[in-house]
């Protein structure tokens, strides 16, 4: 049923880069994209939580997707950006990405959902794979990226 309904619908993703891989973040969660700025470290928290930043007077926590996903730590370059996400449960949170590339619109039939049973460690951060001209895009499952480590 849901499959049928989904055909023809499109979703927009922002394509980001972490290392050589391209990832997609559903645009509806994105509040803002800002340049890398000074992050105030918060002591005694998990290592993937890099600290807090000041976004127009609001104090917003920032996390590293790389560390969370077990990749190499972030190396700050000119292209590094912080994507501010607005999530229902966790509120506003920033994630550090290597580069923001573009916005793509994917038809739902261009998206291959990842079945739940094939989840190994790294895949559990993904909710699907998108296919478009630029190659494959791993679509991030934000809830599992952002959720706190127990």
């Amino acid at each position, binding site marked *: 049923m849901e499959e049928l309904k989904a055909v023809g619908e499109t979703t927009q993703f922002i394509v980001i880069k972490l290392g050589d891989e391209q990832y997609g973040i559903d645009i509806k969660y994105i509040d803002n994209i800002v340049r890398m700025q*000074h992050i*105030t*470290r*918060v*002591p*005694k*928290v*998990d290592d993937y*939580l890099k*600290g*807090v*930043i*000041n976004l127009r*007077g*609001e*104090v*917003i*926590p920032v996390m590293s997707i790389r560390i969370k996903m077990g990749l190499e730590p972030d190396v700050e370059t000119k292209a590094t950006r912080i994507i501010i996400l607005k999530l229902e449960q*966790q*509120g*506003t*949170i920033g994630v550090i990405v290597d580069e923001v590339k573009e916005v793509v619109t994917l038809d739902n039939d261009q998206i291959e959902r990842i079945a739940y049973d094939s989840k190994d460690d790294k895949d559990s951060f993904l909710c699907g794979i998108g296919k478009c001209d630029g190659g494959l895009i791993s679509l991030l499952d934000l809830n599992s990226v952002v959720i*706190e480590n127990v």
Partner: protein
Amino acid sequence: MDVSQYLEIFLDETNEHLQNLNTQILSLEQEPDNMDTINEIFRAAHSLKGMAGTMGYKRMQNLTHDMENVFSEVRNGNITVKANMIDVLFQCLDALEEYNANIRENADEGTNDNEPLIKQLNDILNGGDGDAEEEEEAAADQSEGEAVAAEPAADAGDRKWLSINLGDTEKHVLKEALSQGKNVYGLTVKVQESCILKAARAFLVFKAVEEYGEIVLSSPSAQDIEDEKFELDFSLIVISDAEIDKVLGAAKSVSEIEDAIGDVLDINRAEAAAPAAKPEQPSQPVEQTTAPAVAAASAAPAAPAAKPAAKGKKKDEKKPAASKPVVNRTVRVDIEKLDTLMNLVSELIIAKNSLVSAAAASGTSSAAVNEQIEYLENTTTSLHESVMKVRMVPIESTVSKFPRMVRDLQKTLGKKMELYMSGEETELDRTVVDEIGDPLMHLLRNSADHGLESAEVRKERGKPEVGSIFLEAYQDGNNVVIEVRDDGNGIDTEAVRNKAIEKGIITPEQAENMSEKESIDLLFHAGFSTAKVVSDVSGRGVGLDVVKSKIEALSGEVEVKSKLGEGSSWIIRLPLTLAIIQALMVEIGDEKYAISLGSIQTIEDISPDDVELVQNKEVIQIRDSVISLIRLNEILDIDSKKDPKDNLVVVVVKKGDKLAGLVVDELIGQQEIVIKSLGKYISKCKIISGATVLGDGEVALILDANTLI
């Protein structure tokens, strides 16, 4: 009619009235003949009834109606106030509160009719003086009958609708309506003299009446009524299918409406009467004496003339007008709007701080710039203070329910006690006042149940039989202190320790080494209760730890002082404001942290040689007190950039009686900071209570000194 938009106002007002009733009935118990009190009660009950009626809460209306009847009899001197009556009245208030709670939760009053209560009320009425009531009813009937039956010309005074001049269009509309078999009524609605928002009430009357029909014309015009350009009454011409009584009932059901009278309008006669009725108006007051008693209180101009006719009743009713408390000119504001305002002020202060540092950085700090910045600083500080003051409410609204509670406790516990309150006018942030009620209630119950001894024991010990509980509030610097004190038994630390051992909270060895203070602190341990019998008042073991956590959540602290045999006192300290504080900025490594100025005792410069080791912990001695050192760089995982041989900068902080020295690298200075939450996402770090944005846009974390000690 759709009343949901008034629900909030209704609930607020009902709460106020109930609280008022509680207080007044309590004082009535003390002085049963105080006419002012009785009148005040009557008014509150009357307003409640009207409000409940408007909102369509029939059960609530019924109950208040019967209460009002009782008061009206008391007021007329037909019933005297007795103890059992007070009890019944309190039960009624509880029932009303229950209705109110139901309404708040699901916009419905529930299905409890409270028939036994209504019956008791009626018993009081009948037992008191049945004749009087009948008489009054008869009188009311009579005057009602008069109002309906009397010739239009005779009482045109009240029937002002008769003097409305009908235009041709209106006449045409009315005739048309009549030909369609509808009724045309004229109404005159009287607003209570004490009513503040006459226009709003009139609007409600319009809405209520429009439920039943169409308002063709009003006098004064709808626009004038809306602008409050009318005295105490206004008249309407209505086309309706319904009975006149229904239309009148709808109008009367609006609260603060004194009365509504009306009748079928004879268009032709109205035309003739209109010019005749007008000049008659000045003589109306005299005729009004025959109107029902209810009208009298409000009809101020009528009062002198009416006095001889209405005799005793009249006298009593005149009083409220005279002794009516001065109504403050206030505006109800949603707390969210105030929060927004507070946030904006915070933004402004951050912007000011940025400006200061920008001016310093760019080197443009000429005298003129500095002067302006100082001026700006003054203004933002006063702005902040004013907004803070707006958010402050007296704790009275919370504590005023306690005398009643203590009175009830007296009965359930079978002990004699008296509650003395002072400082009810002390003001605190609205959110704090809302939250502080439960902890205070716990402490009071605790004092009543565990603290005070029974009358016999007290006698033996040479204390007055009636135990005293004190609730005192006062402002102390940047804090508000609320103290709950009793002259009871005090805390038996021995019993506390034994109980703690029994419960497995501490070992017997630990118990031996415990100081008095530590033993008392055991009381705040979760799941601790020393009451031998679990009573319905306290002793469920959920008391004091909840009190403590709640107060700490409000950034406050609890302190206990006790002397066995003489009583104990529980002291709650709360900060005046939660959002903006004065803080000391410090540097550790290359990170900046803020420490609330409120918790800082002194700042010391200590030579490394003065640091001693006790039980492998670093301590220093300052003016005969031993203070343990906390090296912040170790706790916060920062590399200190100071040479270990250099003198230490120690910020001495206190929590209650305990002191600790925080070692920092550098002091930056004092600053007014705006507290921002770190959000739910970073909640693991307990030593950080929040963050703030500095003048240069950087974020600095606020250290919670309390958790460090």
